[in-house]
């Protein structure tokens, strides 16, 4: 696996914090209250490890509330400076909570569920595009995204829905999503193959070289 240095890692965390910061501003406009979003950590995992991490995180939050074991995922495929499948993931019950915030209290639960897909796709679009857009801008490159696809399933199913399993690495961003009365933990996964990971590292190094004034 391609290893990132401490400085490369710091650069990535900072870029994604800028990305979710912009997403938070957009989300705030939608839900009508202050939204704070941050990326406290990024880890590189195999798909199996990533699925395990999601399951563990879900079990911890689910056991207290007696909820199901499904997560909701919104994915978009990106091509350009590097190729990746980006997936935003929340526990299913949290996704309804977010949708509730978007549409207000007056909508009955049954209708809320009907809107879930559309609302989550919109949120996925905002958060993923802010992250990827910031990456692209800072790398001075272009990344083109497909339309968001919404899915509900086990963590395995969500991570596997993106196709080829061979030699892929999951770059997992932990996201803290804080609204006035809600604190929601979600994840963004970037599925990268070896080539994509190499391309990403190269882009970070170019950015760092520019940052250090070695234009």
């Amino acid at each position, binding site marked *: 696996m391609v290893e990132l240095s401490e400085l490369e890692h*710091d650069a990535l965390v900072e870029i994604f914090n*800028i990305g979710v*910061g*912009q997403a*938070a*501003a957009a989300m705030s406009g939608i839900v009508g209250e202050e939204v*704070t*979003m*941050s990326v406290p950590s990024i880890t590189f995992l195999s798909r199996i490890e990533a699925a395990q991490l999601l399951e563990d995180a879900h079990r911890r939050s689910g056991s207290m509330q007696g909820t199901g074991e499904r997560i909701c995922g919104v994915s978009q495929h990106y091509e350009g400076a590097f190729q990746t499948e980006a997936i935003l993931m929340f526990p299913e019950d949290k996704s309804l909570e977010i949708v509730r915030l978007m549409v207000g209290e007056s909508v009955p639960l049954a209708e809320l569920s009907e809107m879930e897909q559309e609302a989550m796709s919109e949120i996925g679009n905002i958060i993923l595009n802010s992250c990827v857009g910031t990456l692209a801008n800072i790398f001075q490159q272009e990344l083109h995204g497909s339309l968001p696809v919404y899915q509900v399933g086990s963590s395995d199913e969500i991570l596997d829905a993106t196709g080829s399993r061979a030699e892929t690495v999951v770059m997992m961003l932990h996201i803290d999503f804080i609204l006035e009365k809600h604190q929601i933990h979600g994840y963004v996964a970037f599925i990268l193959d070896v080539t994509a990971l190499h391309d990403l590292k190269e882009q970070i190094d170019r950015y760092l070289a520019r*940052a250090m004034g070695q234009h």
Partner: protein
Amino acid sequence: MPNPIVLIVDDSRVSRLVTRQHILARHADWTVVEAGTGEEALARAPELQPQLVLLDVNMPGMGGVAAAEQMRRLLPAAHISLLTANVQEATRKRAQDLGIGFMEKPITEERIARLIAPLEG
């Protein structure tokens, strides 16, 4: 008048590096000091007496807004600005109420130029 002193407060090393580079590219003779947290910045500010303080908002510990509030009292004459990607009205309003500036991330040459302009006279 002695050369200006700029204090950069950000938990990201890369972010501090980029800001420093942009300032020094324009003014190689200025002093640029870095702090990784609000607490560290507040501890060093009285002795440093920076003319300009740039603060990231999301940092471990007290965070940039609380640090800016205390910094305002410590350095009534200094130029203080938040530097953040979170450009919400709530944050903007808070900065305004504190009498501090507000600049969007990512850090660019043009944005830094605007922040340091008051020191260029």
